[in-house]
């Protein structure tokens, strides 16, 4: 029982990181039909920048605050990168999927190599502020504090994003744009600005997770592709275009991964692919997917 519960919490905490990774990708795919293969690379840059800024600020504002500053800096940096990518490049390539794919792959290579140039090939270690170190006991099991923090943070982010998409005017415009782009534009809404904003928001969320996810995924040069792959699986399993889809996809994959690692350690890495294949065979549009194009 303890094993089941412990794995449940581990799976949920990983699931929330996956959710955060997946939402940005899901939003841009659902709204703009852009597949941003640089999403994972943005996550990686967020992690590197976050650690660098946090280290720099540590002497100025103390360890705990510097962690927060690092997270914000990582998110801001990738948000700006996303803004640059969208306005400078992707804007010219709407509806040219192949070109978008090639462009974003190009950005992965460029960002990864730049990170290697600046920070070297050695993986960076994440930062654990004092309020997230240590562990607590819940119902007889010991759980690291940062996993609890990730769960709480993920819940808050999910609630915030859900509120944004379902209850605000901008969210309504985004949903309308997903369902019928021409009609939305016909109503006099400047979807171009909305597209830019959503893309930058997705990039911001990716970078924002860089430092938060560091204890689970690490900060290294390979994480750009790894994170992209995880985000993709989440999006395919959950379905694109909705916050709920990414949340369900993330939690399912997180739980499957946690239980898989315990019960089938030999095949731990493959359990999430198994879920992916089953979903594709029986429900190709994902668990909570909006229509597939």
């Amino acid at each position, binding site marked *: 029982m303890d094993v089941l519960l412990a794995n449940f919490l581990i799976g949920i905490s990983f699931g929330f990181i996956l959710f955060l990774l997946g939402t940005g990708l899901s939003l841009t795919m659902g709204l703009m039909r852009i597949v941003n293969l640089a999403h994972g690379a943005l996550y990686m840059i967020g992690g590197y920048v976050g650690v660098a800024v946090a280290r720099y600020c540590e002497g100025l504002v103390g360890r705990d605050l510097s962690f927060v500053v690092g997270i914000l800096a990582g998110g801001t940096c990738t948000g700006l990168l996303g803004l640059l990518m969208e306005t400078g490049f992707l804007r010219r390539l709407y509806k040219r999927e192949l070109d978008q*794919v090639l462009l974003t792959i190009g950005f992965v290579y460029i960002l990864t190599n730049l990170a290697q140039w600046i920070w070297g090939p050695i993986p960076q270690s994440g930062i654990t502020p004092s309020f997230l170190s240590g562990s607590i006991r819940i119902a007889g099991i010991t759980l690291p504090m940062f996993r609890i923090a990730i769960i709480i943070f993920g819940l808050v982010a999910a609630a915030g994003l859900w509120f944004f998409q379902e209850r605000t005017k901008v969210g309504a415009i985004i949903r309308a744009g997903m369902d019928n782009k021409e009609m939305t534009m016909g109503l006099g809404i400047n979807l171009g600005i909305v597209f830019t904003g959503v893309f930058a928001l997705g990039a911001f969320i990716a970078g924002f997770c860089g430092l938060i996810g560091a204890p689970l995924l690490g900060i290294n040069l390979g994480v750009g592709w790894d994170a992209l792959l995880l985000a*993709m699986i989440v999006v395919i399993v959950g379905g694109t275009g909705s916050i709920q889809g990414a949340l369900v996809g993330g939690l399912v994959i997180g739980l499957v991964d946690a239980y898989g690692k315990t019960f089938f350690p030999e095949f731990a890495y493959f359990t999430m692919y198994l879920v992916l294949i089953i979903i594709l065979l029986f429900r190709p549009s994902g668990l909570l997917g909006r229509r597939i194009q």
Partner: protein
Amino acid sequence: MKKAILPGSNLQPRRDWLFSLGPYVIIAIILLALPPFLSNYHLSILTKVLIFAIFAISLDLILGYTGLLSLGHAAYLGIAGYTAGILMVRYGLDSFWVVMPLGILAAGIAAAIIGYIALRVSGVYFLLVTLAFGQLLSVVAIKWRGMTGGTDGLFGISVPDLGLPGFAWTPSSFYYLVFIAFAVCFFLLSRITNSPFGRALVGIRENEARMQCLGYNTWAHKYIAFIIAGLFAGVAGVLFAPLYKIMVPAHLGLTTSAAVMLMVIIGSAGTLFGPVIGAALVVLLERIVSTYTPERWPLILGGIFVISVLFMRGGLGIYLSRFWRKVRPQYGNVES
């Protein structure tokens, strides 16, 4: 609509036919005559160009002609290479006539399985699913250490024995083998793309709904094209393994798939000669850049991706065929 200038695509005046076939003959003669003048090092680069050319035209069948965005094509190259390598290294099989067909067959079977699942979705989802499968296979190659050698790679692969008495492989005889394979693959693929089946694939790329209305089973067309592409990628794979003498998990995964996609796009998707040019360009550029700054090659590669998207829309092949049409305006024109 993009259409290739291929032998036999406009048969009418005989001299015209000569003109469209001419470049192929000249290039073939150059490729056949080159080996004695090249060092082993340069010959291996040329061999690599031809292997990647086979690989690129195999992807072109589904990417350029059918419009399926596959970012997992390296899986079939890798499976064929690994199968051939495992048969030779782990099982001691050394007959060319056993190892090569089995490697190609393995790639075809993998394509049949993956294609069946991946073709349930279309567009960018197809891309994501094929990409996920490529990564899955590279993880299998990492984890299945006993067979694949894990991250160290499967080394010690050589060219399997042809079974001819007194014959031993040299770099130049291997080059000729690769050249023959390339010529055969190119010919077969040009026949396939010019057949009614190939025309139907182009129709699916342009407007799948309309092809369905015309009574075509588009799913089956796409599925068969996917398997054929896997088989040809397998041909590239079984030649790739002996050239590199090692297979590593990265050969199955994303970076190899992205590289071959770039070759197809740079050269012009939807033409057969374009991806060959693309393959030559990327392989040669990598070689040149790597001698100067191996560390910065990914940065430059990324730059090539961006530049090819922004400034070379349609790819180099389009410009070349336009140029070729200008050179010979008096002999009718090729559609484009």
